[in-house]
Structure formats: structure tokens, C-alpha cells
């Protein structure tokens, strides 16, 4: 019984730490999706010139939802405040300019997004194992204290 409880405690703390580390997964996924959205948008502006609503990626993607309602960016918890501000400015003016200006703005955003994706990927690979280890250590500590 004692051993079962000890294993359960360790599993719960490890699982909790895994959940806390999910923000790193979501951040990387967000910037990856955003980069895909920007790439497709730029290709569309250069060649096809369809409205943003007709982009293949558009329907359910988070970037498209932000385009439809730029204020919704402030509800995304895993983004930092300065990132939210930059993205809000970008999305609230998206689609208002001619193709040359749009392309320029998208290129700038791609660079910004690419850097953030790189950082997010690095954080993901470094911090998720760290969180898991911390959770495990915390579980073991709790078990030792209790026993």
C-alpha cells in the first residue's frame, strides 16, 4: 500500500510538471503555424491574389482566427506581452495595404516569427525534460518526507 501510494505521488507530480511544460509546446506550435500562414499568405499575394479568407490554411488555424479578431491575441496565455503587442499591430492592419507593402510587412513578420520559433524550439527541447525531472524529484522528495 505504501509503495503504491509513493509511486502514485511520483506519477502525479511528474504528470503535473509535464502539464506546466505544455506552454513551451504550444508556443513552438503557434510560431510554426504562424510561419506557415505567413508563407502561404506571401505566396498568395505574389501569385494567386485570393482574399485571406480563401487561403487553404485559413479555416481553423489560430493565425486566421486572430486575423478575424485581432483582440483575441490577448487571450493567448503562452505568449509574452511584447509578442502580443507586435502581433496585434500586424494582424489589425493585415489586408489594408497594396501587395508591395503587404509583402514587406509579411517578410518582416516572417523574420520576427522565425527568431521566436527558433527560441521556442530550443526552450521546448531544453525545458520539457527539465520540468519532467523537477516533477520527478519533487515527487520523490514528497515521498521521502512522508515516509
Amino acid at each position, binding site marked *: 500500500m505504501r509503495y503504491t501510494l509513493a509511486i502514485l505521488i511520483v506519477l502525479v507530480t511528474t504528470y503535473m510538471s509535464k502539464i506546466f511544460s505544455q506552454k513551451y509546446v504550444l508556443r513552438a506550435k503557434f510560431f510554426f503555424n504562424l510561419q506557415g500562414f505567413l508563407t502561404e499568405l506571401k505566396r498568395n499575394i505574389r501569385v494567386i491574389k485570393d*482574399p*485571406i479568407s480563401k487561403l487553404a490554411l485559413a479555416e481553423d488555424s489560430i493565425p486566421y482566427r486572430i*486575423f478575424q479578431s485581432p483582440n483575441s491575441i490577448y487571450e493567448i496565455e503562452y505568449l509574452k506581452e511584447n509578442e502580443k503587442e507586435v502581433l496585434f499591430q500586424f494582424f489589425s492592419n493585415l*489586408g*489594408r*495595404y*497594396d*501587395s*508591395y507593402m*503587404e509583402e514587406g510587412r509579411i517578410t518582416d513578420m516572417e523574420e520576427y516569427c522565425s527568431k521566436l520559433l527558433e527560441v521556442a524550439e530550443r526552450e521546448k527541447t531544453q525545458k520539457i525534460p527539465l520540468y519532467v525531472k523537477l516533477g520527478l524529484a519533487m515527487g520523490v522528495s514528497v515521498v521521502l518526507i512522508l515516509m
Partner: protein
Amino acid sequence: MIKSLLENSIGIEIDTKNLTEVRVRKGLPIVLSYGVIMKTLNSHNKEILGTSEIISSIIATVTENSFYAFEDKFARGFVDYQGAKIAICGEGVYKNKQLISFKNITSLAIRIPRAVLGIADKIVKATENGELSCLIIGKTATGKTTILRDFAHSIKGKNIVVIDERGEIYLGQKSLGEYADILESVDKETGIMLAIRGLNPDIIICDELYTYNEMKEMYRCKLAGISVISTYHGDNIQSILNSKIFVEGVFDRFVVLEKTRGRGDVFAIYDNKGERI
């Protein structure tokens, strides 16, 4: 539809019954045209001025928040929005000496075309039910395009090809009748070639004759036994007869419109020698 576009952008109720044109100019009163009657848009006895916000809002709706996707159309003249024609004025953006877009938009012209049944009756008669070629001459807003639309609708039992280069004539198949085929967004020269080769037309209808080459293509139609009905921007018959683009023998009738009582007022009809009938 156009009512909600205007009301949502301007923010007040607008009577769109018989509305034919809206002009939104930055810093100036918004002007509504109901046929030949023009009036400024008022709310509580105060004129509503056009603003950047109103212009941006209309453009954003019309372009589905994707201006770049419509810039070519704006540069070519206008964007079609649920039957209305929306044109913009502003600072031109050029690439290789060609106008490709606009920025710093200062005004909008929204034209609401309407099918007016019976407006082409005199011209149908003058062309002997489409047997003769005819050039309709008139200034802006004299109803040239409306007449073309009704002409196509009025002719029965003949194959008609409508070449709608700028998307101004076609308001749905019903507006053109059951004998018309439409070539939309195709230039006149290509359209005439396509029509002659593949569509076996008795009559070709096209808007706004503008170049000598277009006139030459129309002459080919004439030689092929196809009647041509077209329009020309001018205020009298001399404006086409003295024009460099004029090719003798293309048209059998010239109809001059004037803007006095309303759209489509026929002022005079001339034969192919320029003699008034």
C-alpha cells in the same frame, strides 16, 4: 446588400431605393444620386462628411479585408461588390510605368447599376431588331450600359454574345435574357475573336469602344455578317466621326443620348452617313 454596406460603414440609415450612385470624398459631404437627382447625406439636418474611417471600412468590406487581392481590379477601374461598382481615387502606384494599385485613398465612387426594362426599345427599333449595327454615344451616366443590358434582354430568337470587358453589363443572366452568352473580363479584341470562332453570334454587344484596334475588330464582325452594338463616350455624333479611332462602314446607326430627364433619353438617331433620321 449595398444598403448594409453603406449603413454599417457610415453609421446611419440610408434610403437605397432608386439609389444609383454614392460619392464618399474625404472631408466633404457624402453625395447620393437618385437618377439625375443628387443630394448630400444628412443626419439631424447636418451633412455627413466622408472620413478615412468610412472609406477604409467600405474598402475593407468590399475587399474582404484583403486589399491586395483587389488592387488590380481597382487599377483597371472598379471592384464589383454584389452588383455595385466601387471605384477609388488616390495616389497611383506604378510598376514598369503601369498603374498597378492605389494608396492614400481619398474618395470612393459607388455605382449601383439597375436593369431598366424597356429603356432600349427605341434602339431595338432603330436597329431593326438587331439586324443593323449601332453605336450608342453619350456622356457619363446617360444610361449607355443600361441600354446595352436591356437591348440584350429585348432581342429574341437571335444568338447574342455580350463581351463584358469591365464587368459592368452583366447583372446575372436574367438581366440579359435567355438568348445572351456572356464573356466576362475578356477584352473586346479577344472576345470578338472567341465569339466569331466558337459562339456563332448574330449580335455582339460590348461596352465603351475605346481604341482603333477594337474598331477594326468590329469591322471584321460586320464583314462576317454579325451586328455590333457598342457604346462610345461622347456628347454628339461628331465626337466619333471626327475621332481617330473611327472606321467607316462599321455602324449603320448612331444613337446620341442626353442627360436631361433621366437615363437612356435618346436625343437623336443618325444613319451610317451621319444624317439624322
